[in-house]
């Protein structure tokens, strides 16, 4: 079972890296981009000992307590069906 976790900076939190990337894209000619925000992406693989609900429960805790810092970041979890 494979899970994907996306961690992004909360709205209103300055993202200097995203800003620098955005600045570079406009310099090299990309148009129409108003903002770029950089985040983190995790792939988490589970063995067969857990069912989907158990995995989901663990993921919520993992994403909240470890993968993100709730002071500055939000997270989104995607757990595949198979």
């Amino acid at each position, binding site marked *: 079972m494979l899970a994907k976790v996306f961690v992004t900076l909360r709205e209103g*939190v*300055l993202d*200097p890296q995203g800003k620098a990337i955005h600045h570079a894209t406009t310099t090299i000619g990309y148009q129409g981009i108003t903002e770029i925000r950089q985040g983190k992406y995790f792939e988490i693989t589970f063995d067969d000992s857990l069912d989907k609900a158990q995995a989901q429960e663990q993921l919520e805790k993992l994403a909240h307590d470890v993968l993100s810092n709730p*002071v*500055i970041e939000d997270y989104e979890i995607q757990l595949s069906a198979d």
Partner: protein
Amino acid sequence: MKFGVVVFPGSNCDHDTYHVISKVIGQPVDFIWHKQESIEGFDAVILPGGFSYGDYLRSGAIARFSPVMQAIKRFASDGGLVLGICNGFQILCESGLLPGALLRNRDQKFICEHVNVRVEHTETPFTSAYSADQVLRVPIAHGDGNYFCDDATLRELESNQQILFRYSDAKGEISESANPNGSLNNIAGVCNRERNVLGLMPHPERAAEDVLGSHDGLAMFHSMTVALREKLKSK
């Protein structure tokens, strides 16, 4: 009286801190390995600067799960003195011992230079040997030093007088141009409500001898020594 300096994999200011305590202020000090589950026998604990666990995930994010951090949390809640310098500050924020978080510097660059920092409050075990509004010349060396917290927390920090250090100019004026990393309200260091846990980005241990160009950081270690002496006397 015994100071402890915590060593995480990737700490690199542990020996500087140890040196200042043992040789400059002449107090007993020992290293505490991050796998230790007990810190019994220590009266103050310092989390030094460095790059614990390579700053993987987020600065301080993995160090916070070290066994020693559970012991430090209990120590802090019992009123023990805990000082976090630079990466130590990041670890204290990640562990929830201090409010807020340290983001990437506003200008993305790793900054390694001497800055001016104004002492905001002196009624704490870390700043009693300073005078109010004193301007210190101390080095910073960090990539993630941009202090951030939400508005409610910021109001609380201000009204409880928990902001102990702010980036300023040489005259002690607080301005955006004196803010090296984009920190909210020029915050360079905050303590907890109970005033026994302090975290700051500048390095007092690198400004504790004249040969290093400044001894402005020394009074922090003297303040702690005085506080510990009084505490041990009253025991």
